[in-house]
């Protein structure tokens, strides 16, 4: 029999306990910082005249980049919704990435497109542009038709042709809150060193949408979508705000972020060779700007909102998480030289190591931890009382953080006004600990295998989607989307 003191299983279990304690302490700290920041943000809101920003012709003009690939069923509604944004100086630029489902025909039909001359304003290598179009119905709409090259390539084409100094990258199937742009632009105007700003992404499933406008917010019936709502809230309100406060924000969701165009052009735009181009871009901005001794303020705010539809089938959700995880790992591998380097400030010494240890390798440690723990329990190497105590502690930590997030949401934003919805989310915060979190850890661990096998090169991710008008309807057609990542 192996002596207990040197038994690798027992050793591994203790390592797991230590890992668990550290990660939960970090989560708690992030939640506390997030809470303080939200409080501060909400208190300051009356000082900020966002209406003035949205109606002033002197506000920084924004080009909204809408990369789209096979979005024919939703593209017209999405574009109309964007054109209705409350913002004085706005250009909506749809970049059709060689769609094969008639997206371009739909755009031509709905917006009376006419081919025009448009000169690129930046030099970034992309797939060839076929034609540029202006709309006969909406002066603020530009459509660019290009050869297929992936989402990052489509965004880069948008970056080349964008007329305005700020570019907002969003997914073709997301919907912006009318005041979202002015809230983020405020930051660029108040602090000129800001190079990128992200807003919260919320899940639209269950809510009522009419003609591309959100009429009422409700939680969905689907338990899977509710589980994702809870995850998103925790990640955005608990994590991302804190990272932003600490000046270490590494991710701005591909679904909604605003960037200074010149800063993006300087770093070469989005990288078409990675699956996580949104996160990779943010880390590259940190890196390149610090290498050049330039200021780099990248921030996140909790109430410029973008609404997106969450996957409704487990298969799609697992595929999505696999993809996000690969994106994260690719990003960290590419920028591994930043790890621990003081030259990159807290981003190099704290954020990158944290993401490497807890977000990238974390799921693998978690999954192997479950297995080893069960084996040790079966072999009698860990006592049942100790196992139950660990389980209880783990559950309590998770619940405290989830409930604190819900409390933040209710105190500050009250996006889910009914008691029924709140009750549903409380219930979800409990049940996600029994199966869902473990399943997601397995899904994310699978990314190591996918990456090892060299599968899943960069393409448009696909997803079964019901469309905004019928967010609860059964999945009907595959609509491509790079969804948002909600990691801490």
């Amino acid at each position: 029999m192996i002596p207990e003191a040197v038994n690798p299983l027992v050793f591994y279990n203790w390592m797991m306990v230590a890992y668990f304690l550290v990660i939960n302490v970090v989560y708690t700290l992030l939640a506390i910082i997030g809470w303080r920041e939200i409080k501060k943000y909400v208190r300051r809101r009356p000082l900020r005249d966002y209406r003035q920003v949205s109606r002033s012709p002197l506000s920084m003009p924004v080009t909204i980049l809408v990369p789209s690939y096979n979005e024919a069923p939703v593209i017209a509604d999405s574009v109309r919704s964007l054109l209705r944004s409350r913002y004085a100086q706005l250009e909506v630029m749809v970049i059709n990435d060689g769609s094969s489902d008639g997206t371009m025909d739909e755009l031509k039909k709905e917006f009376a497109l006419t081919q025009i001359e448009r000169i690129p304003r930046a030099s970034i290598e992309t797939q060839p542009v076929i034609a540029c179009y202006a709309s006969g119905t909406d002066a603020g709409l530009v459509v660019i038709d290009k050869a297929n090259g992936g989402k990052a390539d489509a965004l880069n084409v948008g970056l080349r042709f964008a007329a305005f100094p700020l570019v907002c990258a969003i997914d073709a199937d997301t919907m912006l809150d009318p005041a979202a742009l002015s809230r983020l632009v405020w930051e660029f105007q108040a602090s000129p060193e800001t190079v990128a700003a992200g807003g919260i992404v919320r899940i639209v499933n269950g809510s009522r949408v009419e003609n591309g406008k959100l009429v009422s917010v409700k939680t969905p019936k689907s338990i899977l979508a509710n589980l994702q709502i809870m995850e998103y809230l925790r990640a955005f309100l608990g994590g991302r705000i804190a990272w932003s406060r600490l000046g270490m924000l590494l991710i701005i969701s591909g679904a909604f972020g605003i960037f200074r165009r010149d800063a993006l052009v300087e770093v070469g735009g989005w990288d078409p060779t990675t699956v996580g181009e949104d996160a990779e871009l943010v880390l590259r901005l940190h890196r390149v700007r610090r290498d050049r001794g330039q200021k780099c303020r990248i921030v996140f705010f909790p109430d410029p909102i973008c609404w997106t539809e969450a996957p409704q089938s487990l298969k799609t959700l697992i595929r999505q998480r696999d993809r996000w995880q690969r994106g994260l790992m690719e990003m960290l591998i590419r920028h591994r030289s930043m790890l621990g380097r003081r030259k990159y400030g807290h981003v190099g010494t704290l954020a990158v190591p944290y993401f490497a240890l807890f977000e990238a390798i974390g799921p693998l440690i978690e999954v192997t931890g479950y297995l080893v723990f069960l084996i040790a329990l079966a072999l009698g190497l860990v006592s049942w009382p100790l196992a139950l105590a660990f389980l209880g502690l783990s559950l309590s930590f998770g619940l405290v953080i989830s409930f604190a997030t819900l409390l933040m949401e209710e105190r500050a934003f009250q996006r889910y006004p009914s008691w029924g919805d709140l009750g549903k989310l409380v219930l979800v915060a409990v049940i996600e600990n029994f199966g869902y979190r473990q399943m997601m850890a397995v899904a994310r661990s699978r990314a190591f295998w996918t990456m090892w096998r060299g599968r899943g090169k960069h393409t448009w991710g696909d997803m079964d989607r019901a469309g905004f008008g019928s967010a609860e309807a059964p999945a009907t057609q595959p609509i491509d989307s790079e969804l948002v990542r909600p990691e801490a």
Partner: protein
Amino acid sequence: MLAVLAEVAPSQRTIHALRETDRNQQLSESLEYQSCGEEPVARGLSALLLARMGLDRGTQVADRLLRDEDPDVRLAACSALAEIGTNAAARSLIQSLREGTMPAERLIERLGAPWANHEVLLALDESGDPRLRTALVRALGLAPDRRALDMLIHLSGRGEDEERVSAIRTLGSTGPADKVVPILCSALDDGNPAVRAQAARAIGTLIEPASPDRPETSIAAAEQLRRCLGDEDWWVRANAATALRSIGKAGEHQLIDALDDPDEFSRDRARESLALLKARATAG
């Protein structure tokens, strides 16, 4: 309480009640005291509330807070002064513009209102600083005032680049068309493409397509704009095409003629513009 009062647009009744409270309990003194406190939110809200109560000391408080260390407080002070809307408030905003204590655009958009025009015109007349003059001209572009016409015409031809661009743009919103369009047409020959582009755009804004003040003005302008369809700068070409589309029949005739232009750029722009006009007509 401050936050609630500052966030909503108070009714006359609320303002009356606040003034009553002020008389009885020195509310404004208390707010003035708060405006010197350590808490930035309280400082900013005090300024906003004093402005909404329409009290004289609101101007002094907001003027002081324009130099506050917190950017949000400075912006709140700027909003407060715009709400007060007096000559003294305008002078404070112009002074801040001079000192550069906050982004010029935020001050310009507040000064771009009829109540501020008197002080803006005075400052424009007195100032020798081209940066300040440019900002003031931009403010006039948001609240056009024909008293500024001579000064704008002067700046459009003789100012520095930024001044010329701003003056041309402001002339486009000031009018009248028969007096301003010839000036803008001569600016189409300016050496700076930004001036040419703005001049083309301003012509498009000024000429009413349905009922031009004087048809000969729009015909002459359309001829000049057609020439710009072949400009060496893309921005000028694009603005000239947009202007020709927006000025009505005279523009359309020039676009049709330009289909046979020997210059390839002109032909392309004309073809695009006519297609867009057709698409718009079809879309209703």
